């Protein structure tokens, strides 16, 4: 069965610093890969997705992620973090439309 691991429960970065959130998955084939962001008390918003093709994908709000098949990873990056990026970030994998698995999430705190 597929699974998703986000090794970092909580990350703190200074505003303006770069960010990388880690995501590793376990699946026999290449799944669909997603990053979502959740502000407190809100639903999840899609940041970006990878289905196939170019392994570096661009998303909204200046985020990007890189699919590395050899490492079974799909890490999320942003070159310069803004205070408004403070939120919880979820990596997800899906083998089909009705089988999406989420990581436990990484909470991002941004220091002024």
């Amino acid at each position, binding site marked *: 069965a597929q699974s998703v691991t986000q090794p970092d429960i909580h990350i703190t970065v200074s505003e303006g610093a770069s960010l990388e959130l880690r995501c590793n998955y376990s699946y026999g084939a290449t799944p669909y890969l997603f990053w979502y962001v959740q502000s407190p008390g*809100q*639903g999840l918003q899609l940041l970006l997705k990878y289905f196939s093709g170019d392994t570096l994908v661009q998303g909204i709000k200046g985020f990007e992620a890189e699919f590395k098949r050899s490492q079974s990873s799909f890490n999320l990056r942003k070159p310069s973090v803004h205070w408004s990026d403070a939120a919880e970030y979820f990596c997800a994998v899906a083998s089909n439309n009705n089988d999406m698995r989420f990581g*436990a999430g990484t909470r991002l705190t941004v220091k002024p």
Partner: protein
Amino acid sequence: SQTIHQWPATLVQPVGSPLSLECTVEGTSNPNLYWYRQAAGRGLQLLFYSVGIGQISSEVPQNLSASRPQDRQFILSSKKLLLSDSGFYLCASLAGSVQFFGPGTRLTVL
């Protein structure tokens, strides 16, 4: 683009009481719909999904049930709530192999 509505936004219920959470979707027809639960500090757990009216698949055995009486309506129910049912319930709709989420319902069972 589609819009997903959920209500109520928050709910406080006593143990043993019934539950009904509603999700409706605008801007699409015959979507796959999903109910997730998010416990505090944890990721999302898929509870139910539906590929059409009257078609419900359950992912986790529990005292919750789901129904889809209309194409764009998905309801989560319980006859008797447990303390462990507390959490944040999210409805999602599928579009182009991507799940889009509603704003969620915060349920507290006391």
